[in-house]
């Protein structure tokens, strides 16, 4: 309770300072005021454009996550299973991994236009590497002893893949899920800022180009809320999908 009160006090102090100091130092043009931001936010929320743009951005982020995630898992699984392939491809993968994927955005615009496709693909290219690396680690993490024990139980290679390797990789992917979704959002928003006609990134850059500081803050707040919602959903999805992880703290720990 005290914690909540303290948090509210900090928030109130911050907003009050912003509200009072911004006009006092004649910085309203750059900083706007919470009241103006609230009005701006209410305007986009009440005419429905907020939900339209947020919907577009969510769609891009989630599609990008699913596409990049599926490809990342497939490639991670293949590399994990065939070390020769992994060894051959290693320098290429490392090079692409080091490249900031945002640098590919202009190329994607050239190839796919400024529509939703390009955002999905940029988000996917960011998520791909995160999921790929997690999956690859997951597959490699399966110990040779574990596989030997399964083989002694009579497991065929196919059964090994589906009973041990894939579930192990998936549990690693779930572990990376919470990491990947915010990155998918980064991909979608950056792509929208670069070139688009809808989405929260478009709303943001649109307001900035019109020197609408209050509108810019309103868009940032909308992005924050979307990020919080996505994080919340992913967290609960993770709990639901990986019940064995959450169960650990039930037990007394032994050090």
């Amino acid at each position, binding site marked *: 309770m005290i914690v909540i009160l303290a948090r509210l006090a900090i928030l109130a102090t911050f907003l009050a300072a912003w509200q009072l100091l911004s006009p006092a130092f004649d910085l309203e043009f750059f900083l706007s005021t919470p009241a103006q931001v609230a009005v701006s936010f209410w305007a986009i929320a009440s005419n429905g454009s907020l939900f339209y743009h947020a919907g577009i951005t969510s769609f891009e982020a989630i599609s990008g996550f699913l596409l990049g995630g599926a490809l990342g898992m497939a490639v991670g699984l293949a590399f994990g299973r065939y070390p020769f392939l992994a060894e051959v491809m290693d320098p290429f993968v490392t090079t692409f991994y080091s490249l900031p994927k945002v640098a590919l955005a202009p190329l994607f615009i050239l190839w796919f236009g400024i529509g939703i496709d390009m955002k999905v693909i940029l988000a996917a290219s960011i998520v791909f590497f995160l999921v790929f690396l997690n999956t690859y680690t997951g597959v490699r993490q399966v110990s040779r002893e574990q596989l030997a*024990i399964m083989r*002694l*139980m*009579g497991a065929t290679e196919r059964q090994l893949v589906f*009973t041990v390797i894939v579930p192990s990789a998936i549990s690693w992917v779930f572990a990376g899920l919470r990491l990947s979704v915010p990155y998918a959002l980064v991909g979608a928003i950056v792509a929208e800022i670069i070139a688009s006609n809808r989405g929260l990134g478009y709303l943001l850059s649109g307001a900035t180009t019109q020197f609408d500081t209050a509108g810019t803050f309103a868009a940032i707040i909308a992005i924050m809320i979307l990020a919080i919602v996505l994080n919340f959903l992913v967290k609960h999805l993770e709990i639901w999908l990986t019940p*064995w992880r959450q169960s650990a703290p039930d*037990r007394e720990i032994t050090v």
Partner: protein
Amino acid sequence: MQNIAKLAPAAETLPDTSVPIVEFRNASKSFGAMQVLQDVDLKIRPGEFVCLLGPSGCGKSTLLNLTAGLLQPSKGSAHYRGEKITGINVKTGYMTQNDHLLPWRTVRRNIAVPLELAGWSKADTRRRTDELLKKVGLEAFADSYPSQLSGGMRKRCALARILAYDPETLLLDEPFGALDAQLRLLLQIELRNIVRESGKSVLFVTHDVDEAVALADRCVVFSARPASVRHVINFDLPEDRDLKTLRYNPKYQEECARLWKLLTPELDRQAALGGKS
């Protein structure tokens, strides 16, 4: 795989004690420049509980790997029921200090793994896992995940999983190594009971003298690396020994002392080699 499967029922109806269940003939094994086994000659009779005792890191586990068909000897050969072991030997079940349970499966579904692999029906799997859960005393934890279990319960779960596919021979590599003394005693009792009931053969690797004497019918003492057979000892202890009171049995104490005496020179030699490496 198939001809081994055919052999099994015949062996049950007509126990042929003349053919050893596991036999090493002059088996040697090297990993690169390091030799871990040297000319091991050893016969294990069906239904026997044999402890393999030696300094840590001497190469005892390699013998289990040879029996399981995970490794091939560099020289000599390993045989199972008279047949040369050339690939994965599915007649054996392996359990190590690490229980290798699948963390995303509940206890029941972990035990069911070998049954699923063998294509058992849902109903049969359910019935069999119920039996096994009861046997190892984990009924109340059927739907728990391994991460919710204590070390001893995880071992029980791994034991139940091995019993689910009912291998003829158990290869146990310090399975109770990481447990506290009381828990280890309880699991040792369970293991001996289960083995006696089912007539399974057991190769049990340990470096614990007391454990070897308590569990085994026979104990093989290995030299420091490269491991070769130093002594083979038959224990003069009753089949139906009570592990809880065994430590007060003067005969047990005698056997322990005898074994220690045989083992210590090898410990010194292994220490000179640089211990565990």
